[in-house]
């Protein structure tokens, strides 16, 4: 029976299945944000002028910087996968660590951005915000919810990538079995992708 069990454990590995599961999960994540994009569209349509005024307040430089950081991190994670596939374990580890550092940098930027807004009294429920017209309240409400939820996903992605990093170091994710790294990479690309939509919606359209 034990012999049999080993045989089964071996058979249970299904890379295509694992990838398919990840894609389906990413699909649900897209729909989660899709609901928010829908709400954004509705209110932008309703309060077009006030959204424009509120959007002027956001710091485009920090936003652009974060976009560059996140895009670069997507590149490093993709290179890390390629490196592992080619058997270059050290390079893969290095690139993955770089991805993590970039993700950290993103969150630090976000922290400064949010805290300066909060410092100016712009946060949900604040007295300053409640005195602004409705469209601006909604804009900032959506800003905090959408970038906040995205930030949460960055943190989840960080945990995911670090876990896989540990697996690469211990050797259970390796040249012949890298589907976990691929899936972490897919997740990270999704985080990047969502930001690519958030950036113009909040910072650029004015």
């Amino acid at each position, binding site marked *: 029976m034990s012999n049999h069990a080993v045989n089964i454990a071996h058979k249970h590995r299904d890379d*295509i299945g694992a990838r398919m599961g990840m894609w389906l*999960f990413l*699909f649900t994540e897209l729909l*989660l944000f899709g609901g928010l994009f829908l*709400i954004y569209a509705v209110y932008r349509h309703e309060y077009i002028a006030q959204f424009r005024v509120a959007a002027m307040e956001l710091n485009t430089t920090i936003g652009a910087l974060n976009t560059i950081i996140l895009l670069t991190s997507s590149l490093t994670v993709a290179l890390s996968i390629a490196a592992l596939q080619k058997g270059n374990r050290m390079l893969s580890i290095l690139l993955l660590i770089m991805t993590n550092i970039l993700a950290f940098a993103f969150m630090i930027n976000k922290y400064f951005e949010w805290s300066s807004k909060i410092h100016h009294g712009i946060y949900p429920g604040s007295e300053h915000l409640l005195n602004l*017209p409705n469209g601006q309240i*909604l804009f900032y409400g959506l800003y905090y*919810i959408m970038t906040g939820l995205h930030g949460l996903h960055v943190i989840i992605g960080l945990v995911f990538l670090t876990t896989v990093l540990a697996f690469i170091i211990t050797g259970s994710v390796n040249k012949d079995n890298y589907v976990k790294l691929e899936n972490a990479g897919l997740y990270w690309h999704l985080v990047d992708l969502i930001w690519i939509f958030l950036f113009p919606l909040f910072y650029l359209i004015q």
Partner: protein
Amino acid sequence: MANGTIAISEKSFFEEGTTKQASGILSWLLSTDHKRIGIMYLFAIAIFFFTGAILGVLMRLELIAPGRTIMDAQTYNTIFTLHGVIMIFLFIVPGIPAVFGNFFLPLQLGAKDVAFPRLNLLSFWIYLVGAILVLISLFVKGGPIDTGWTFYMPYSVRTTTNVSLAIFAAFVLGFSSILTGLNFVTTVHRLRAPGMTFFKMPLFVWSTYATAWIQIIATPVIGITILLVMLERYFGVGIFDPALGGDPILFQHMFWIYSHPAVYIMILPAMGVVSEIIPTFARRTIFGYRAIAMSSLAIAFIGYLVWAHHMFTSGMSDTAAIIFSFLTFLVALPSAIKVFNWVATLYKGSIDPQPPFLWVMNFIFLFTIGGLTGLVLGTLVTNIHVHDTYFVVAHFHYVMFGGTGTIFFAALYYWFPKMSGKMYNLKLAKINAALFFIAFNTLYFPKFILGYMGMPRRYYDYLPEFADLQLISTIGSWIMLLTIILIFYNFVSAMINGKKAEANPWGGVTLEWHIPSPPPLENFDEIPTVTHEPYDFSQLKTMKYIPKGESYE
């Protein structure tokens, strides 16, 4: 299905687990075996169903006469909310996919387990955490949620009860639903036995597959919607609060974009079970196999496009209302395709009226009433008359309880011998089916009339002219409670001292009837090769387990 060639190991999954512990509670709680997980779901869901039913009986008791009877208005509000939350999120939505999908999807596909066994266990635990959160929300400060299970804005922001905790529980349960869904989709795509093409899959698999897609696609939308309600309560963001420029109608749209497809999460697996039971007891291949399979997908698809029929009186544009009314009619077509095909299967069949079959007959009767009154609600003019009255309450109880609930029992009666290896009391089961029919119609039919007369739903008190029908309905709830207790009694006593079940007591031919009852840990020692259509009864002759006293020449 190369019959008789499937080699079988000696021990059943009851005796042999996937964990290090061979026995004890942990060998169940940590098991990644889809069969054990299915049975754990069954236990949990049975407990929640019973809780929900008791709450329902309490509500009916309050409504036995006008004025205050046993509770005050606020308690009544919390009880109908909890009845809804428990029945919808903890019983009907997960019910058939989580219990029977988990247990029988791999068996019917000829697989050893689902695609992600550990994820499957995680789904179960997330489900339990969600359920426990619902229970905690009853007792912490603020009191149980009183918004109704739809959490409509802006009341759900204003009320001081534990809305946040209860909807967070719903969010957590949604996670469980998504993970189960993606597990099932991957299983169907990756783990079909050799020879099992898509059009050789049993119809229960088809309907579970369609359901899994709805779970994946619809659930995130309600996830984000209720998350927004929470944020709104904690931080006053204003997305749905009209005082801050938000739009409460938008909440209704977002809510029903999920919750209407969710209605099909509830009913599709039930329809799949019916498509299994009818051929087995008519000894005839199912009529219109492809039409039934495709209609599952059609229902899943059209189900997305009808959500706003919940909002005909909320202030949408007339054009939108007309379009949604039309789309709502459209969804009746694939449902009717199924019903007509079932009836056509029975025509000239050699019908063996065993308990599962009787429950299916209950289903067809009750579901047809539920479906036809759905057309009354989908039609704009009549909708405006009966909107948010007891007519709606009656309609969705006929569809959900008369549809999905009935089939939950039918599935249990059909597959219990396979799951437990024990046989229940057939005579009592038949009496139960009849009693259920009487109880159900006594309990819910008066509500159609009440609604037509103008009794609004969710009201604590009513005018004296409604008293007689309310009394009849309350009496019905007692018969229903008795029926449910008898059903529980039948299964529990079968578990304790039922006689051993045959491997194939009903003469079914799908793959699960090719292995012993209860199945061994790995289901099939050797993965079967499928050569027959799923409901080809000619293979009964050559099957390894032929039911006693039957010959098929």
